[in-house]
């Protein structure tokens, strides 16, 4: 992002860059940069809090008054790690089809919540990159096959594994947004997906199996956030 800041300024356009990683915004040194100690993915800090977002923008645009390049920090922090310890309480559907794998049954059972989530969010993070919502259960079945021993490149994953996993995660997190009645804490939806759902467990098991199969590192590593 700082590259764009330098290029745009050279073309005669003033820029203000928000950054969530302190060392990164300091080392890349955009002409005007505001480090905000916020969780990754939330550069304006707090979803659903216009007043907070306006405070961030006020601090950012104030940098335009500087007569020289400046990188500084926003005065309020959001304790991302502590916030990430918060869990969301999302009811998982009861078993419906005893013949289906629990993860497949679960995904089918979440479809109504997913559809409500799409309605609420405009589908901003929904499925549809390489796997449409109707095909999420089949995509999960492909990862089940990997977890159970099928070679990763013979399991029938639709598209690149990392992109298919994003669709599954997006399907679940969209359903999560519909099931909580407030702005979800940062990472809480991801924690819920990976730690509490059957599909998340399948994805983690498939990731481990792909690593043991000596799949190329990007193919398995990016199935989940990098701290996993």
């Amino acid at each position, binding site marked *: 992002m700082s590259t764009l800041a330098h290029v745009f300024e050279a073309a005669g*356009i003033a820029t203000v860059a*928000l950054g969530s990683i302190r060392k990164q915004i300091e080392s890349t040194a955009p002409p005007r940069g505001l480090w905000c100690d916020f969780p990754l993915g939330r550069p*304006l800090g707090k979803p*659903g809090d216009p007043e907070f977002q306006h405070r961030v923008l006020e601090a950012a645009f104030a940098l335009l008054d500087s007569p020289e390049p400046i990188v500084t920090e926003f005065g309020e922090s959001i304790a991302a790690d502590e916030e990430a310890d918060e869990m969301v309480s999302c009811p998982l559907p009861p078993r419906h089809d005893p013949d289906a794998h629990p993860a497949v049954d679960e995904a089918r059972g979440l479809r109504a919540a997913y559809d409500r989530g799409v309605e609420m969010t405009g*589908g901003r993070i929904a499925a549809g990159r390489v796997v449409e919502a109707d095909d999420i259960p089949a995509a999960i079945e492909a990862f089940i096959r990997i977890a159970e021993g099928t070679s990763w490149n013979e399991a029938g994953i639709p598209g690149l594994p990392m992109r298919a996993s994003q669709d599954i995660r997006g399907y679940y997190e969209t359903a999560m947004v519909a099931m909580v009645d407030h702005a979800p804490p940062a990472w809480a*939806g991801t924690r819920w997906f990976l730690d509490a759902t059957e599909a998340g467990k399948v994805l983690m098991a498939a990731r481990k199996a792909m690593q043991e199969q000596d799949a190329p590192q990007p193919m398995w590593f990016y199935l989940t956030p990098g701290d996993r």
Partner: protein
Amino acid sequence: MADSDIKRLTEDLPPPEFETTAFTTPPPLSEATVAIVTTASLHHPDQDDFAPADTTYRVLDGERRDYVIGHWSPNFDSSGFAYDMNTVFPLDRLDELAERGVIGRVASQHMAYAGNQFDLSAMKMDSGPAGAEWLRQQGVDVVLLTPV
């Protein structure tokens, strides 16, 4: 899930190198046209998704609100953007600032690139300057850059 652990994965990536820091003095904010350029790989559903290592940009219509995220990295929270697009793309907030007269005008169109690039040469030499030229043609004075 530790946000700080994930930040540590990327904080030491080598920075882009520029011999000097370009610096443009804008008109007063109350007279300026402001656009958002995000590196969150946003696009409209009817536009092409971003490919891996895609250095091109998408033009985002400020009159629409159907923005979807096409980023390839799993290393950020996306639920905040799902719940409230302004968490990443604060277009409603800019509209409010324009109504109050704090900023002159909100650009009618905005832009999205894909962040998390390992090879920045194309963005530095090609799509970045092309985007800047496009912004200049729209009369943009100030760009707010937002990551994920």
